[in-house]
């Protein structure tokens, strides 16, 4: 894949082909949504985008009834989700960083899905056209969103932890 026209959902026909998404929908989300600019926009006004033929938007304050982060039970070491995200609906606590001219939200967009977090982050959208095969010999296109988060975080019960999390 040297450019976007080679990607399964851009330009080329996928007729007669099978699409396999290792993990991701956001890959599909971002490939199918119109470019939007997330940087510093007023959150009282939702950003509307196209997602798989449906109008969706980024989350605003009106999408959150609690007005605060979800709190886990005492002893929970689970990381807390980022407060914002995309509204399908429901709200999914994830963004789609990447070049706007490829349909993503922009380079200055939060890649982490964990809040109260500090550490190493990597994100990538590796894919391929017919680069997967099942046990019956069927060929699949690959669309993924792969991320990893490694560092310290404040868990949902307010305690401090370290850990490594794969975004799948």
């Amino acid at each position, binding site marked *: 894949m*040297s450019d976007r026209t080679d990607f399964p959902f851009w330009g080329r026909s996928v007729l007669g082909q099978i699409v396999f998404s290792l993990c991701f929908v956001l890959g599909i989300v971002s490939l199918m949504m119109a470019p939007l600019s997330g940087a510093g926009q007023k959150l009282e006004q939702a950003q509307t985008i196209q997602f798989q033929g449906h109008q969706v938007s980024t989350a605003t304050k009106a999408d959150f009834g609690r007005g605060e982060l979800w709190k886990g039970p005492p002893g929970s070491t689970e990381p807390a989700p980022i407060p914002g995200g995309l509204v399908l609906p429901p709200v999914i606590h994830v963004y789609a*960083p990447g070049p706007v001219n490829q349909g993503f939200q922009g380079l200055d967009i939060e890649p982490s899905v964990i809040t109260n977090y500090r550490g190493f982050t990597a994100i990538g959208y590796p894919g391929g056209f017919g680069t997967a095969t099942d046990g019956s010999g069927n060929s699949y296109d690959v669309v993924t969103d792969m991320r990893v988060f490694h560092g310290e975080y404040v868990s*949902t019960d307010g305690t401090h932890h370290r850990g490594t999390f794969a975004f799948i």
Partner: protein
Amino acid sequence: MQLHDFNGGIQPSGLFWIVQVPDDALKIEGLTAKLHVVNAPVIDDFQFFAPGGVPATVSYDITWTASGDVQHFRPQSSDPLDPTNFAAEFRSAVATISFTGTEAGFTVKGTGTSDGIFAEMGTERNGFFLRNQP
């Protein structure tokens, strides 16, 4: 068109599609990061947010190779709902993956690259660590 969508599921908290892995699954050396995941429990949703997902596992090796200058990102809003409300030092990268996905009656193997699409890696902070960073 058949779609298999392996993902880590969504927790009651809203935590989206992540699975904890051993710390030594990730090796960071210079401008390269390698993640080795074995039999991570996931679900195959078949379609985005569609009911009827089935249990599955995925194993994969992914390598990020960074290049270029460090890009510094700073919050452009103090609103925690803003997607720019984080700070980071990232380099552009290329990610390559090889994977196997397995569920009852179905196994798939494949590869992929982010070349020409998007990848980045580096360090970041948000939330508490953003507010309390000098």
